[in-house]
């Protein structure tokens, strides 16, 4: 349903995103994970054309066969909110502080003529019910600052799903929320996606969060896709050294806290280089503990079964038989 090919996003002389291929079939929940500055939000926003004015986009993003790249704003806005819903990181800031929340939800319905004007109010309340907001009729008349963070995010979700979109883009939707609320929101998103057969592009820096909601994961580093595949494979047997590092730095689930206490927290050494300061070849070079000489040249994409693929010269060894030529490299790794 969504096919991204050779997507390049640059601002000025700096290339921010460079993606060879990424696709989201209908109903799939894809997690896009990466550190801040990895270009994950840019990638997600390029789908609906909501990038900074200065950004230059080349390549192709096809949504249901329609090319979205460099489409005029007026035409894109027919897709936004109707075919593609979006929720954002900071729910309080994402809502208009001077408009009642019900009206903000209803606006999406009116814009795309989803229901006749007379039915907007009733449908708004139904939507608020569906995102499990209590006392929805009264809540619709309140202003954003009168709601809790979790309630605000539910309002945004109601707004995003109002017109039954085929794809929901969720850009760090739980990052600003308490851990307990996070879990509820994730469950709600998973349920809505399953009920409606709605595909979700879930953007987060938190692999743990991604793991709990997505069936597939794409790992971004420095604007480049380093590994993608089914969630259990990515988490269970990652191949790319960056993915491996990301999994290692995750302190673990709350139930593991007792076990993790006293152990030092693992970090990835260094930080994401500033724009334009990446070394040639693999972008993780310089921070990677398993660097080999060939890393200075662009690593090839290695395809594995189950649509699992990665881009690494010296991948994490695996017991599964590998493509010819790769096993040798795997042995060299410490």
């Amino acid at each position, binding site marked *: 349903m969504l096919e991204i090919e050779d997507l390049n996003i640059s601002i000025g002389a700096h290339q921010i995103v460079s993606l060879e291929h990424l696709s989201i079939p209908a109903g799939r929940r894809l997690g896009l994970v990466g550190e801040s500055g990895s270009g994950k939000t840019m990638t997600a926003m390029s789908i609906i054309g909501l990038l900074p004015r200065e950004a230059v986009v080349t390549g192709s993003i096809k949504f249901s066969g329609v090319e979205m790249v460099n489409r005029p704003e007026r035409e894109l806005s027919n897709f936004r909110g109707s075919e593609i819903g979006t929720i954002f990181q900071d729910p309080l800031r994402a809502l208009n502080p001077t*408009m009642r929340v019900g009206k903000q939800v209803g606006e999406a319905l009116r814009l795309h003529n989803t229901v006749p004007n007379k039915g907007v109010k009733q449908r708004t309340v139904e939507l608020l019910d569906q995102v499990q907001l209590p006392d929805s009729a009264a809540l619709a008349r309140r202003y954003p600052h009168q709601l809790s963070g979790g309630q605000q995010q539910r309002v*945004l979700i109601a707004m*995003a799903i109002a017109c039954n979109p085929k794809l929901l883009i969720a850009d760090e939707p739980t990052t600003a929320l308490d851990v307990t609320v996070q879990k509820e929101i994730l469950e709600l998103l998973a349920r809505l996606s399953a009920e409606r057969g709605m595909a979700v592009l879930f953007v987060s820096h938190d692999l743990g969060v991604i793991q709990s909601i997505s069936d597939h994961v794409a790992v971004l580093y420095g604007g480049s896709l380093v590994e993608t595949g089914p969630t259990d494979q990515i988490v269970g047997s990652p191949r790319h050294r960056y993915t491996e590092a990301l999994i290692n730095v995750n302190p673990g689930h709350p139930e593991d806290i007792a076990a993790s206490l006293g152990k030092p927290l693992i970090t990835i050494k260094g930080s994401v280089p500033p724009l334009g300061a990446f070394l040639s070849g693999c972008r993780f070079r310089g921070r990677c503990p398993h660097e080999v000489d060939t890393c200075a040249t662009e690593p090839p994409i290695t395809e594995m079964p189950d649509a699992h693929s990665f881009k690494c010269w010296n991948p994490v060894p695996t017991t599964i038989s590998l493509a010819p030529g790769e096993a040798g490299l795997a042995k060299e790794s410490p």
Partner: protein
Amino acid sequence: MFRVVVRAISSLLVSAFMGSIVVFLLLRMLKGDVATVILGQTATREALDALRDEMGLDAPLVQQYWNWISGVFRGDMGTSYAAEFDIAHEIWVRVPLTFTLAFASLILSALVALLVGTFSAIHAKDWRGTWVDILSQIGIAVPSFWLGLLMVTLFAVRLGWLPAGGYVPLTENFIDGVKSLTMPVMALAIPLSAVLVRYVRSGMLEVLDEDFIRTAQAKGLTLRRAAWRHGIRNASIPLVTVTILQLGSLLAGAVVIENVFTLPGLGRMLVVAVGGREALSVQSLTLVLMLMILTLNFLMDIAYGLLDPRIRDSGGSVPIA
């Protein structure tokens, strides 16, 4: 909202009281005393003593203040020294004109500033934004009395569409009243809106960067429609703050404009009173003009509450943004 109103009223009362003391003391701090001011340096000692006695200037300051302010409450501000008219009555009949003039200019310029400022923020990066910039720069530079004279030459003398001066009360003949106020209001509103446009523009540019504008776009609004539907109300909150700061110069402008268009308002009375060294009239007129500013200020405080539900909930405290 109730708390917002209560807060605005109490602030109005406190400011009015403090202001009245300042107005009263300022006149006592003049060189010589009020009697000398009225009669001039050449007056004889007997004449000065007689006037001091008549005006109660020998009494302690507190007593004098009390005499004056209690008179104001009773509607008695004394009589003019030279012209022998009742000051309170004279002020009372002139208040509606000056207030209408100031209020209409205020509302008009705020509306124009909102529309033009939003337009220029949306088109900040193309030639339309630049044009608004140039025009507002000119508008700020043009003094309102000169603008008034230009308009008289064009609309009254050349085209004969509007009267060159004079005033017909709106309650007497609405159409003629509006005609007589059109040019004075324009002369006041154009420079004021030129100032306000710049604030709306920069405020709107900030609002357009807000996340909720992006949400509106993600919902399916174009940036332009998102600015009109979601931006205006949010951008008008800082506009209220700036407008409050402009109230003083607005009233000062009204005084000048009334003289340009020979409107029988407080401004004309003030100029005549100052020219005639009518200390009592000046004192009470200043008080009334100050009360007028405070009233407009009060209305703006209420506007905050109407515009922003967060201010309503916090009982009227305006966040310093």
